[in-house]
Each structure stands twice: as structure tokens, then as C-alpha cells.
């Protein structure tokens, strides 16, 4: 088993974990983290799968390099949106729906 294939499998696992996180988690910041994990999983699959035979492949590497910078931009935008949402008094979904009074403890 080459390291490329191993990390492609890890990438699949990360993708599913990230997807599950986006669906199942409540807090917006956690969802942003999950989104990033999902993205990293895809990057690993892209590069790992292309390098199963052990030879480096510049094309997916260049694509992933682009992808990483774009995902930072997406993260920054998502964080700004989430903070705006919170500042506007929105529920970031982080609780305790049973006892909203305790949010200000």
C-alpha cells in the first residue's frame, strides 16, 4: 500500500466526517471547521489518488494549491457571516434549546 493510496482513504474518511459535521453539528463555528475538514479530505483524495504509484504528479498539486487558498477565503467569508449573524442577535445554534435564559451566565 503506497502512501498515496493510504492518504486517499484517509481523505475519504475526512470527507465523510466533515459532511457529517456540517449536517449534525449545531454551532456555526463548528460547521465552518467541519467544512474545512471536508475540503481537506477532498484535497487528500485528489493528490493521494493521483500518486498511488508513488510518483509525484504536478497537476493535482497545483489544483490543490489553488484550492487551499480559495478555502481560506471561503473560511474568512463564512466567519464574517457567522459573526455578523451573531452580532445581529441571531442564534448561532450553540445551545441548549431548552433553557435559553442561561445563555448569558
Amino acid at each position, binding site marked *: 500500500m503506497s502512501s498515496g493510496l493510504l492518504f486517499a482513504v484517509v481523505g475519504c474518511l475526512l470527507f465523510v466526517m466533515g459532511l457529517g459535521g456540517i*449536517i449534525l453539528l449545531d454551532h456555526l*463555528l463548528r460547521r465552518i471547521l467541519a467544512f474545512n*475538514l471536508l475540503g481537506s479530505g477532498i484535497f487528500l483524495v485528489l493528490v493521494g489518488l493521483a500518486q498511488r504509484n508513488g510518483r509525484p504528479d504536478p497537476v493535482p498539486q497545483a489544483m490543490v494549491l489553488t484550492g487551499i*487558498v*480559495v478555502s481560506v477565503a*471561503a*473560511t474568512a467569508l463564512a466567519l*464574517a457571516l457567522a459573526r455578523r449573524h451573531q452580532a445581529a442577535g441571531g442564534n448561532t445554534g450553540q445551545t441548549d434549546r431548552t433553557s435559553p435564559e442561561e445563555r448569558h451566565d
Partner: protein
Amino acid sequence: MNAALTFDTLLALLLLWSAWQALSTPKLDRAVIMFIVFGLLLTLVWSRLDAPDIALAEAALGAGLTGTLLLDALAAFGQTGQPAGNTGFVTTIKRFPTILVLLVLLAALLAALSKLPLQAVNLPAMVAQQMPDSGVSHPVTAVLLNFRGYDTLLEVAVLMLALLGILTVGLPVERPLLSRNLLVPILARYAVPLMTLAAIYLLWAGSHRPGGAFQAAAMLAAGVVLLNLAQVQPRWIPGQHWIRQLISAGFLLFLCIAALLLMLNGGLLHYPPDQAGLLILLIESGLTVSLAINLAAFYLLRSDRPEPLPNQEDEP
């Protein structure tokens, strides 16, 4: 079992562990820190996968920018209290169908992975064949700026769009420093010139070995963030025009060269082979500055208005 495989397996396990921690821990601060750890472990993974370009970008962005952005957001979210654990038995039952679907998806993905043909097209050989025409001698840079130059052009546009989006929804409010000490400014004064030097080195290295505009820009942006943490560089407010001009300058330079080539050669970003090296260097230098400012703006561009809901403040 040989040592290389053991190394990879252990690294993979640590990576999955940190990802799981980032998702499942009930505490927000721990989740963010574990995510930073995940990014740093990923740097090691890229190194193992013979992708030093990506490792450089991941190290510079993960340690420098994403980490600080997330920690800053954590400080803003932390004040509304800790999230509930949400791991009760009832929620587990409710979530069971979703988890089942996810597991089926995972099985399908892994099955698909094992059935893929080893190699439909031989991309590395094709890249190697075209290398003499690319004007540079490092294949990743050749792909980024010559063979797939329009991808890079659009990527810069995406970064600008993200910043426009942030400006549109309203900038986050700057939070005051919780603590300050004398050593950090001293570190910043010595480290930032070194980081600038490192960025120039990475930019120069990009044409013949791993490195290039993105990595250099990430390094420069990290330098600006460090200056801000040391209170040498104050936050940027939205009205400052030089920031917007510099950010758009790199993109416009790229666009102008693309349009010029379209008129001269009849192909978008089809460089003539003998000038390709020079044009790529020109584009990369412009990109480095504007990308760096764009990335730094994600952290430094802060609203000058006070917090809309001051009653949520409970800082000491």
C-alpha cells in the same frame, strides 16, 4: 511492516484523531485548537506525499492566517457561553439515520476508490513534455501560471470576491487585546524583516523549485498579522483606498497581460515560449503583493463601528 508504512499509518491515525476531536469535543476552544493541530499535521502529510508546494502553503496559511482568524472568531463567540455537549441518548437515536447514510456513503466511496483504473492519462509525462515551452523549470509553477493560467486568474478573482462579500455583510468588530507584553513587539521587529526576506526567496524559488506567489503571499500576510498582534500595525478601516487599489492591482495586471496575449496570439494566456519566463515572473510579483494584502485584509480589515449589541460584553 516497514518503517515508512508505520510512519504513514501513525500519521494518518493522528490526523483522523485530531479531526475527530475538532468535531466531537464539547468545548469550542478545544475544537478550534484541535483544528489548528489538524492543519499542522496536514503539513506533515503533504510532505510525505512529495508535495512541498502544498506543504509550504499549508504551513504558512494554517499556522499564520487560518489559526489567527479562527482564534479571533473564538474570542467573539466565546462570550455567549459554552455550547452544550449534545451527546444525550435521545439525540443519538435521532441522529442514527443520518449516521447510517454517511456510513453507506463512506462504503460507496471506498468501493469506488478501489475500482478506479490506475491511470487513465499520464499527466506527469504530459507536463514534462511541455516543460521546455513553459518558461519555468518547476512543474507546479508551470501548471499554475502557464498550462492552467486561467484557473489562477479566476482564483485571484475568488479571493477578491470573498473580500467584497465580507465588506458587504459588514466587517467584524475589532476586539481589544486581552493581554500585551513587551516581548512580542521585539519579536515582530526582528521576525517580520526575516519573513519578508523569506517571502522574496520563495517567490524567486518558484520558477525552478517549490515556492511561488501563493506561498510568498501567505508568508507576507502572516508577517502583517504578527505586526498587528504586536500592536505595531493598527487595524485597517474600510475607507483606506490604497488597500483596495493594491488588491485589485495584481488581478488587473494579470487580466491586462491575458487580454494583451489574447489580442496578439489569439489565445487567453498563451504565452510565447521565449517570453513566458519573464511574463510569469511579472505576474507572480504582482500577485504576491495583492494576494498578501487580500489575505491580510481578512484578518486586519475591521469595522470602525462599535459592537451592535453591547449588552453581550462580559469581558473582565
